[in-house]
């Protein structure tokens, strides 16, 4: 009797153990940066729960650590299956064969349809005509303005560079601690993020930064600083801090992105609006920056199919990106639901329009070097170390060296 019980237990155990073994076959590791919204963690856990035979191991990594950790992992052969990388960093990995070519898998997929994606985000996941990743979300920058101050000064939202300068002059009010404009011209990736669109609006690109339009844009930025229409601290402030001064009513206009909407709706005690980035001339070429991350699969993965399934699962949740995580989907076929705040809804409509003109930084494997050439030039001209033309010529020389021209 006793023996039977033991045998029974053993048999039962081995059955359930067998069942467990049969199910828990695959472990997928995912690395990414997760903000307060816990987007990647949430989706990874849901994918884990939805698949009995797949265990998902998600590791959240801080922004500054993400690329160094990934480089280390590739070097030592310990790369995760899936990673979510900032879009300008993506080409460093895709161009060197570190990422899995998913062109065919995406073409055969019922869930991922590249034709609905915005051009900019999709381009950042491509290298040499092949697709190595799928954009997670997207964002861009446009011009915020303080409606109350503009109305009081009788100024309409500026649509060209000249109008922007005039508006900044009219709105600048040192007596009341109000600057005309604020943005970020910091000496890091944020500075390039904000300045590159201006080069692009004038017909240039990251490969050609010293055209006459780019020089004009940089001279405009310097004029704004020299005439004290903006705080000198735009040179050392990131976008978050600089937009903070706008929210506090200390700047009449600010160049920033949709990630500000919730904070602005809560903090700003005035009426505000958003307009597209001013163009060089009326009706001129539009452009803007493009931010956010791309999903990619490392080429060394042992489970390419399961990893791709996971990415399909994440893409299938695109309609939840905005309502649940305040991320803008990188595709045009998903309508953003109303937030219940008219100002936010209006602003979002402008950002969605601006996204059509958003261009990726790169893609280029040495993007960080190109970016440094651009923000160094921007800062050395704005601080009067060099003329705008000389600074951008220096940047062009550095970029040519990186591009191998």
């Amino acid at each position: 009797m006793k023996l039977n019980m033991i045998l029974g237990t053993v048999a039962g155990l081995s059955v359930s153990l067998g069942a467990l073994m049969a199910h828990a076959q695959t472990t997928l590791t995912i690395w990414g940066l997760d903000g307060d919204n816990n987007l990647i963690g949430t989706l990874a856990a849901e994918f884990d729960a939805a698949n009995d035979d797949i265990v998902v191991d998600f590791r959240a990594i801080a922004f500054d650590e993400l690329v160094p950790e990934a480089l280390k992992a590739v070097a030592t052969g310990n790369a995760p299956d899936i990673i979510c990388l900032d879009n300008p960093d993506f080409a460093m990995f895709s161009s060197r064969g570190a990422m899995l070519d998913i062109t065919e898998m995406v073409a055969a997929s019922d869930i991922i349809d590249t034709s609905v994606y915005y051009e900019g985000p999709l381009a950042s996941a491509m290298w040499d005509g092949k697709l190595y990743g799928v954009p997670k979300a997207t964002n861009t920058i446009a011009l915020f303005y303080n409606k109350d101050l503009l109305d009081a000064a009788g100024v309409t939202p500026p649509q060209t560079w000249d109008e922007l300068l005039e508006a900044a002059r009219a709105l600048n009010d040192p007596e009341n601690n109000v600057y005309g404009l604020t943005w970020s011209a910091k000496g890091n990736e944020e500075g390039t993020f904000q300045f590159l669109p201006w080069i692009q609006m004038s017909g240039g690109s990251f490969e050609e930064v010293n055209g006459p339009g780019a020089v004009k844009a940089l001279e405009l930025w310097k004029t704004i600083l020299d005439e004290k229409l903006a705080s000198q601290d735009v040179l050392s402030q990131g976008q978050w801090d600089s937009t903070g001064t706008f929210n506090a009513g200390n700047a009449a206009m600010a160049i920033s992105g949709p990630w500000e909407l919730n904070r602005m709706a809560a903090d700003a005690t005035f009426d505000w609006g958003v307009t597209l980035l001013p163009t060089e001339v009326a009706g001129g070429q539009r452009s803007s920056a493009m931010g956010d991350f791309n999903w990619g699969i490392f080429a060394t993965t042992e489970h390419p199919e399961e990893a791709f399934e996971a990415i399909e699962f994440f893409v299938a949740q695109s309609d939840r990106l905005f309502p649940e995580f305040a991320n803008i989907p990188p595709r045009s076929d998903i309508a953003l639901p109303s937030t219940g705040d008219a100002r936010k809804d209006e602003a979002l409509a402008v950002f969605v329009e601006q996204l059509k003109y958003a261009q990726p930084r790169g893609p280029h494997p040495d993007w960080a070097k190109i970016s440094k050439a651009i923000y160094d030039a921007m800062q050395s001209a704005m601080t009067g170390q060099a003329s705008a033309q000389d600074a951008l010529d220096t940047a062009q020389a550095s970029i040519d060296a990186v591009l191998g021209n």
Partner: protein
Amino acid sequence: MKRLFISISDGKGFDILLVGLAMFFLLALAGIPLLYNVLMSFQEVDMFTLGSFIRPWAGLDNYRYIFAQPEFWLVMKNTALFVFCSMAGQFVLGFGLAIFFQQNFWGASTIRGLFLVSWVMPGLVVGGIWSFILAGDYGVLNAILEGLGIIDEPVFWKSDPDLAIWAVIIANIWLGLAFNMLLLSVGLAAIPRDLYEAAELDGATAWQRFRTITLPMMRSTIGAVLALGLIGTLQQFDLFPAMTEGGPANTSSVTQYWAWQMSFKQYDFARGATISMLMLVFVFMAAIVYVRSTRGEVRG
């Protein structure tokens, strides 16, 4: 066998064992990484060879690249300025404070102890605090200076290309002041009081007593403090990311920050190693001064 044991437990063998242990740790923890760094500065490194030892040879290409960078001379100048002014400020103010607290007035030792607060704080925190103090539009220092009528409009300490490096130097002087003061206080306390009494009886002025007694008696302490100050200043990294990030336009960038930027922001590890090789020149000077000054200590 027995002789060997005796030698190891008490004799020449024991000395060799001690020296050997120290040399082993020195080689393992400092020598090999240093050599690895030297090697890497002559190699091409990419993400697939990051973990290897044998990589494509680059010769002097990395050095040529670094020397050809537009910011090279600016960074070198900043490093020299940062090192010299930080050390001078820390030393002069530290010496002044050490002598001041030597006067043994009421509460002197308590206040001297409180000065150590700056030294125990992490560099990132100190950088954060000074960032607030030196902020442009809403900085505390600007508010005080404006209140006193010294300036009319805010000084942009962190964003003005002529001032940014000074903002970091000021913070670094504050950070290293207590350490200098403490070491110099110890040196001062070790000088026999009767020397001063005898000199006073002979009619020596305060300046003469300082020049002919304090300074000569403090020579080895001063040498050690300056050498440690040089090392500490060259190691000072935290203040830069916390305050200026080397900007604007690299006007506050120094070699140690540039090396980090090259390795961990531009992911060019070989050239990051190359920049840190250039720092060896500075560090060697520190090592020579330090060894020379402490050698006198052992003999004396």
